């Protein structure tokens, strides 16, 4: 990271001292809070306990322990099956809404986003109530037909919850890919005699493949890294829960937690690398030349009945967690009955009373994390796109690499690295709430960076040159031209970081040391673990969902307004 130097070409220094200082500061930040913690985890995994001697003993122990190997297999199995089921949900929605004249296509696409604004483990509780052994569906099935279905039993429960939660990633990417296919591609194939399923298989499917793969790999990684959902469903023999349990129950000196972390990182990186490899040279979106999107066909009555039926069924499934959460938050008792016995607002009173601390903490943490992310995002995007600084791509890669680091791993890294460092009053740095904020900022940086990168890319360089030509220095140009023009993208980046940080749990779970420092997601998790806490937990969950939904909606509004006002024709 320290290899960042200014290019001294034969002509002149191509970077200003300010730019070099900025790059070094970013490198230091990423090094301290991302690279070093992860490197520490690697180091501990490959050294003998308490010494610095290289060893593979820990790896050997991992491979030899039956529980770990089963966890590894389970994690793979759950992630892969989640991708399959998420695809089953997303494919019809994407295809029907882009390929046919489908009423309510916009509604479907919007509702499709809904699951993303709720932490999956929150949905898990609500899903238990509907689909669990003694949930609404099984009670009714038992009453009427005398059998139950084990939707939520063991790994199936995790798969079920995760695929309902994460299918939007596939839906969004696949829909975008389908919409980007040039209509002429399809028409050319028809003109040459291809139609129906052959047309789909030979033209539409290959062209949409990159979008599908991008979404699918994301789902795989997310599910593989998720900690809270399996824990809440009481599934412990998966990798992320094992890492967490080792470190919290045996302690941060136990090497097994680190070895599991290494396996988690390797799996994430491998999944992303494979999808990148499969995507290489296949970005077809640029082939579009106006009049894009597949030709929309009117459905026959039979197709319509079938199509709308499928869509309604899927949407009901998608909305089930939200509905369940809402019911639960108003329920007095809801157990062994299809619907709650009676309703109350007491849970909300409790949440806004004694538990309002969680909400306050969340707002503070997520705002600071979002703020850090957009500052870093703008700075990195600017250095990458507008300067010739040597090593600027490294900053970009490092920041984006955070995407492949599971929250548990980052949490373990922070604990290990910063536990020995003490604050003036004697408490370890690792238990200081700022650490939670930093972990959140690092975890969400890739989203903000992508938004800022895209925003800056859209600004014509001549707009900046015009400012320089009229007497503005580089720094002044950034302040008066670049940042105002990026405002929409910066805001989008902030909101994405903020709203995902607000419901993030896996790193937080490791780093929260006292209840008074806990954010909302942590509070939710604590509540949801006891039967008595479910009511207030659900109320807190509803607050979280509304908070995130409101932010997203507001930012969308602001972005649209500002774009209209500017009439951004560029």
């Amino acid at each position, binding site marked *: 990271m320290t290899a960042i130097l200014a290019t001294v070409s034969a002509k002149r220094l191509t970077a200003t001292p300010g730019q070099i200082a900025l790059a070094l500061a970013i490198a230091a930040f990423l090094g301290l809070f991302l690279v070093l913690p992860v490197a520490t985890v690697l180091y501990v995994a490959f050294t003998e306990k308490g010494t610095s001697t290289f060893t593979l003993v820990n790896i050997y122990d991992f491979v030899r322990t039956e529980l770990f190997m089963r966890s590894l297999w389970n994690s793979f199995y759950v992630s892969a099956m989640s991708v399959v089921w998420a695809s089953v949900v997303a494919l019809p929605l994407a295809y029907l809404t882009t390929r046919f004249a489908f009423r309510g296509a916009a509604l479907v696409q919007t509702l499709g986003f809904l699951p993303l604004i709720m932490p999956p483990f929150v949905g898990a509780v609500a899903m238990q109530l509907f689909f669990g052994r003694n949930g609404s569906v099984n009670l009714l099935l038992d009453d009427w037909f005398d059998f139950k279905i084990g939707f939520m039993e063991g790994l199936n429960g995790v798969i079920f919850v995760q695929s309902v939660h994460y299918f939007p990633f596939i839906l969004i990417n696949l829909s975008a890919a389908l919409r980007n296919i040039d209509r002429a591609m399809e028409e050319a194939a028809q003109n040459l005699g291809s139609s129906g399923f052959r047309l789909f298989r030979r033209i539409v499917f290959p062209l949409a493949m990159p979008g599908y793969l991008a979404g699918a790999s994301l789902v795989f990684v997310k599910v593989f890294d998720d900690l809270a959902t399996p824990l809440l469903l009481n599934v412990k023999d998966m990798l992320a829960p094992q890492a967490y349990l080792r470190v919290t129950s045996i302690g941060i000196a136990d090497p097994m937690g680190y070895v599991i972390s290494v396996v988690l990182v390797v799996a994430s990186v491998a999944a992303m690398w494979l999808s990148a490899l499969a995507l290489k040279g296949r970005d077809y979106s640029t082939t579009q030349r106006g009049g894009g999107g597949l030709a929309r066909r009117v459905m026959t009555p039979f197709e319509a009945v079938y199509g709308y039926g499928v869509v309604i069924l899927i949407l009901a499934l998608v909305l089930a967690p939200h509905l369940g959460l809402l019911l639960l938050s108003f329920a007095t008792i809801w157990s062994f009955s299809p619907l709650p016995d009676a309703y109350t607002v007491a849970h909300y009173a409790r949440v806004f009373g004694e538990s309002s601390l969680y909400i306050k903490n969340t707002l503070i943490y997520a705002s600071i994390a979002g703020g850090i992310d957009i500052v870093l995002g703008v700075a990195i995007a600017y250095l990458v796109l507008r300067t010739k600084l040597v090593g600027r791509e490294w900053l970009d890669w490092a920041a984006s690499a955070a995407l492949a680091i599971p929250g548990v791993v980052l949490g373990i890294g922070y604990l290990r690295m910063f536990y020995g460092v003490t604050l003036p009053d004697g408490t370890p740095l690792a238990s200081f709430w700022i650490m939670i904020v930093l972990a959140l900022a690092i975890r969400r940086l890739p989203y903000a960076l992508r938004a800022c990168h895209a925003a800056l890319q859209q600004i014509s360089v001549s707009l900046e040159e015009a*400012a320089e030509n009229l007497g503005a220095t580089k720094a002044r140009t950034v302040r008066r031209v670049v940042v105002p023009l990026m405002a929409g993208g910066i805001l989008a980046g902030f909101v994405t970081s903020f709203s995902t940080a607000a419901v993030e749990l896996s790193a937080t779970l490791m780093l929260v040391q006292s209840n008074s420092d806990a954010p909302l997601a942590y509070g939710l998790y604590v509540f949801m673990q006891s039967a008595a806490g479910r009511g207030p937990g659900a109320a807190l969950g509803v607050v979280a969902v509304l908070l995130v939904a409101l932010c997203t909606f507001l930012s969308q509004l602001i972005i649209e307004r500002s774009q209209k006002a500017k009439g951004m024709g560029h």
Partner: protein
Amino acid sequence: MNAIASISTPALAVDIEGINLSYGANHVLKDVNLTIRPGEFFAFLGPSGCGKTTLLRLVAGFNQSDTGRIMIGGKDISNLPPWKRDVGMVFQSYALWPHMTVRRNVAFGLEERGVARAEIERRVDIALDLVGLGHLGERRPSQLSGGQQQRVAVARTVAVEPKVLLLDEPLSNLDAKMRVQVRRELRDLQRRLGLTTIFVTHDQEEANTICDRIAVMNDGVIQQIGTPMELYERPANLFVANFLGTANILAGGIVDSGTGRHFVIDGGIRVPIASDATVPKGAKLVFRPQHAGLTGPESPSGNALALPCVIAHREFLGASIRYGVRIGATEVAVDVPFQSGEELLEIGKAATLTLPQRLLLWLAA
């Protein structure tokens, strides 16, 4: 209010000395030397990709040359960053900031110079009046037509009273009719301000109509510098002859016999070379279509050159008729004024092409 009196721009010379510039292995500017006189409207003219924009951006400070220097008003500015150069550039895309109103766009440069608020507003008014847009100050750039945007870009640049005005293909984003109007406005504005101006274009008509002098460029090399008429009448080489107007080119070789020099056109026709003509090595015979005449196959009298030829085709252009004529294997164009009632030459018939000796050009590549 007299707008012009309040915008005071100096008239300074621009000296470009010994400039070489490469992008990697691509040698884009090759030993460029030229002097632009104070108050001159000067054009860089050449085909796309010849390095005009690169040279212009070098003056503005957005590129760095490998060798050479640039002087404005006798001061070397080669090592100044763009924001300290005080050269006003109008970008091909106009580069108006979409998040600012027209007024704020024009005020920008003055604000960066720390001019007092009241003075800024006054000078913005003057600059906008100068381009006739005083009433549109509160609009956003996206609410203006292409021509209006172009004028805002000019107003924004001249408002800071730059030392030199740089225009990079300023008319290329306008439709044909606007182009003629705007180029006159630019010329008028430049005359009134007396500001040294460099105008980049690939369109010879644009350069000819509004510029005092032109540097014709090809492949990073300056081919010739001169007034539009000089370039047309006395092109330095085949490239310039071809690029400015239509040129007929006959290839051949020079034979020096006892009776004087002759040019033997490929195919055998011999053309005597005037004893006072300078003929460079490897030269070809060049003439303009309107300088040649056509008569019947019988040889004309007088001392004009007479070449036997065959009429290949003919196009009616309104004021004139353009004949395509074959001399040996080469086809050339001859423009003959059109007089109604006159009999036209028939396609496929033999004819004689006449050329006054003094209008022949001997040019090498």
